[in-house]
C-alpha cells in the first residue's frame, strides 16, 4: 500500500469522532482505495497519477462524519438514563431509611425503659435525611438532556420547545409527589405524637396552598 495514500486517509479521519463506526469506515475506505490504486497501477498509470486519482475519488468525507457522530448522543443518553435510575433508587432508599430512623427512635424509649420520648429527635433526623433524596430528585429533573437544535428549522424549534416543556412538566410532577408524600407523612406523624386529630387535618389545606403556589411559580417560569 502506498504510504502516502495511507497517510492522507489517516489525516482525513483525524477530525472524525473516535468511534467503532469511524474506524470501520476508515478500514473500508483503505481497502477500497488500495484496490483502486492497484488497478490503476496494473493499467500502466504512474504511481503519482494513481495517487492523485485515488485521492480525488474520495470526495468530501465531512458529510460522513456527521453520520458517525449521530450515534454518540444515543450512547450518552443510555448513560444518562442509567444515572437517573441509580439516583432514583438511592432517593427511595433514603426515604425509607428516614422512616426507619424515625420509628427506631420512637421505640427507643420503650426499649431503654425510660420515660424520655425520642420520637421528636427521630422526626428531626428523618427530616434531615429526607433533604438528601429530595435534592437528588430535583437535581435529576434538572439534568435531563435538553434537546439541542440539529437544524435551524421550525420543526427543530418545535422539538426543542416540546422537550423544554416536557422537562418542566417532569420537574413539576416530581415536586408534587414529594409534596404530597411529605404531607401525608407529616399528617400521621403529628397526629400520632400530639393526638390532636381535630386540628391536624389542616395540614392538607396547607399542602393545597403550597401546591397552588408551586403551580403559580411554574406558570410564571413558562411565561418567561
Amino acid at each position, binding site marked *: 500500500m502506498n504510504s502516502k495514500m495511507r497517510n492522507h486517509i489517516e489525516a482525513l479521519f483525524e477530525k472524525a469522532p473516535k468511534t467503532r463506526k469511524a474506524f470501520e469506515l476508515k*478500514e*473500508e*475506505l483503505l481497502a477500497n482505495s488500495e484496490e483502486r490504486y492497484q488497478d490503476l497501477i496494473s493499467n500502466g498509470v504512474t504511481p503519482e497519477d494513481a495517487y492523485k486519482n485515488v485521492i480525488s*475519488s*474520495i470526495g468530501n468525507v465531512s458529510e460522513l462524519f456527521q*453520520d458517525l457522530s449521530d450515534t454518540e448522543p444515543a450512547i450518552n443518553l443510555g448513560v444518562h438514563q442509567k444515572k437517573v435510575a441509580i439516583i432514583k433508587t438511592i432517593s427511595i432508599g433514603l426515604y425509607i431509611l428516614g422512616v426507619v430512623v424515625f420509628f427506631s427512635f420512637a421505640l427507643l424509649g420503650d426499649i431503654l425503659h425510660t420515660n424520655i420520648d425520642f420520637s421528636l429527635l427521630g422526626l428531626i433526623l428523618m427530616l434531615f435525611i429526607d433533604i438528601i433524596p429530595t435534592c437528588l430528585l430535583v437535581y435529576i429533573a434538572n439534568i435531563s438532556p435538553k434537546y439541542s437544535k440539529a437544524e435551524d428549522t421550525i420543526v427543530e424549534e418545535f422539538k426543542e420547545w416540546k422537550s423544554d416543556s416536557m422537562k418542566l412538566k417532569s420537574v413539576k410532577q416530581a415536586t408534587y409527589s414529594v409534596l404530597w408524600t411529605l404531607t401525608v407523612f407529616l399528617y400521621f406523624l403529628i397526629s400520632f405524637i400530639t393526638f390532636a386529630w381535630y386540628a391536624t387535618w389542616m395540614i392538607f389545606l396547607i399542602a393545597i396552598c403550597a401546591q397552588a403556589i408551586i403551580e403559580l411559580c411554574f406558570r410564571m417560569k413558562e411565561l418567561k
Partner: protein
Amino acid sequence: MSLTSDVIRGHTEPIILSHLIEKDSYGYQINKEILEKTDDMYEMKEATLYSAFRRLEKAELIISYWGDETVGARRRYYSITEKGRKAYEKYKKEWETTKSIIDRLLNIGGKSNEQ
C-alpha cells in the same frame, strides 16, 4: 453534465440496491461496475457511496459483513435484505412513472404520440 450527476446522485441508493440484487458486493466493485455500465461517463465519489451505505443500513435495506481477506485490508461486503428488494421494486415502479411524466412535460417523443 452537472445536471446529469446531480440527478444520478439523487438515485444513489436504488443504484446500489440494483447492484446488490445481482450479488453481494463492496464499495470499489460497485463503483467499478457503475463506471463500466456508463462507459466511463459516471463515477461516484467514495464519500457519496459510503453515506448511502450507512443510510441503507439504517433503513435495514442492506446488511454488511467483513470479508476474510488474508492479504491487505479487509473488504466490507454488503448484502441486500428482503426489505431492500421490496424497496427496490417499489422504487422501480415510481421511477417509471416519474420518467414518463418528465418525458411528457419535456415533449420527448411526445409530439409524435399526440399526432
